[in-house]
């Protein structure tokens, strides 16, 4: 008996609405992130991740308001990411009811920001998002690099070295997305997940590429992840959270019933 591996549905939110669509039969407004989060909460999701994909200055107030409504109705942990650049952004999100914040691009441009944030708010609420892409060729030892701008801009940073640096700076958790697999439904990059998970002392959330339940189990068993994040397989009612948990449990993975 041990700590359960976590299943985290992810909501991509633009101007206060879930985008990419969510298709639950018994939900009134599939675009309202609070309704969607409530649905996942009822199903037994272990956490909710909310990514503000516009993250423009104008949409921030909508985000704070949405996070506040969500935290008033959904009593499981909530991570909010997207466009976080300052300590003040973090303070506002935590005050609105986020339990953790995910820092991505700002960490690449200013790694000290992660240290500042962890010192100020504690490592337990600082998640660093790592978007990595394989840069080694066929037959070469695998190597991954950090990319920004949705996987378009290389940074020259080695993914494993970067992960270690971020945990040294005080990241309490890493949200690892394979830019090669994101949106492909072909499963996590398991070699990447395993390499990062073995390298760091903090929990790792695997993300990017889930298309079926076996992918979730593989992320834990083969990738060594502590949590698995997925969006579309849950949003379109292809699988429910209880189905995912039953599947993982049948493969010997400890889950929360």
């Amino acid at each position, binding site marked *: 008996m041990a700590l359960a591996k976590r299943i985290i549905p992810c909501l991509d939110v633009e101007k206060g609405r879930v985008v990419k669509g969510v298709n639950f039969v018994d939900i009134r407004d599939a675009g309202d992130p609070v309704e969607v989060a409530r649905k996942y909460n009822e199903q037994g999701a272990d956490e909710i991740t909310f990514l503000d994909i516009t993250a423009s200055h104008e949409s921030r107030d909508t985000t704070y308001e949405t996070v506040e409504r969500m935290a008033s109705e959904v009593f499981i942990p909530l991570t909010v990411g997207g466009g976080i650049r300052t300590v003040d952004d973090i303070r506002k999100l935590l005050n609105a009811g986020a339990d953790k914040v995910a820092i991505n691009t700002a960490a690449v441009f200013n790694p000290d920001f992660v240290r500042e944030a962890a010192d100020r708010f504690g490592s337990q609420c600082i998640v660093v998002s790592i978007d990595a892409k394989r840069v080694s060729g066929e037959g070469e030892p695998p190597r991954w690099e950090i990319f920004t701008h949705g996987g378009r801009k290389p940074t020259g940073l080695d993914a494993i070295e970067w992960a270690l640096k971020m945990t040294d700076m005080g990241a*309490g958790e890493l949200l690892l997305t394979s830019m090669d697999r994101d949106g492909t439904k072909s499963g996590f990059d398991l070699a990447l997940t395993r390499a990062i998970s073995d390298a760091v002392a903090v929990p790792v959330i695997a993300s990017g590429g889930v298309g079926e339940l076996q992918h979730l189990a593989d992320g834990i068993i083969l990738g060594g992840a502590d949590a698995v994040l997925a969006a579309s397989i849950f949003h379109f009612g292809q699988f429910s959270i209880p189905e995912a948990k039953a599947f993982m449990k049948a493969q010997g993975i400890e889950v929360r019933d």
Partner: protein
Amino acid sequence: MKTLAIIDYGMGNLHSVSKAVELVAPDTRVLVTSDPAQIREADRVILPGVGAIRDCMAEILRLGVDDLVREVSADRPLLGICVGMQALMSRSEENGWVDCINLFPSEVRFFGNHLKEGDVRLKVPHMGWNEVYQTTDHPVWHNIPDGDRFYFVHSYYAEAEGNPDIAGRTHYGIDIAAAVARDNIFAVQFHPEKSHRAGLQLLKNFVQWTGA
């Protein structure tokens, strides 16, 4: 109307705690406050806390929350949550040993960077849903199945072994105190406000508990 004061000493988000209590106890007035008068008037009190112990204790001492907690817990129920539980212990290894309120004799220790279960390395922070085994029959555990999971997120812990006040035990590499209780105080390492059904039941029980 009964009132419940959540002590606001400037450390982190108290929104979730107050919303969760409001949900399970609609006929209780919930105040998030640092005002000693309001805290003294409340029927029950919650001491929350997130972040690092050094900063938490600095604010607790600056605002006189330590004396206030000693005073109110003498005659009414008090619930400590996460760092709010750790602050009730004697001292914490975090930030190079910090003296705490010392209502419980335990010390708070670091899990370390080499925590293991058999051959498997365990990640720190201890983050996620773990099983809590009740070691005492306490009204705050009412209607919560033994071994139910609660949400934890912490890197420091109070030891279970030899702990005279232990009320709930969780295993993560070693046995830790998931909950301690004595007289009017019940304190938990996990976050009931983030622990879905089990956590909401615990908060409901706390609001109904009249104390020792």
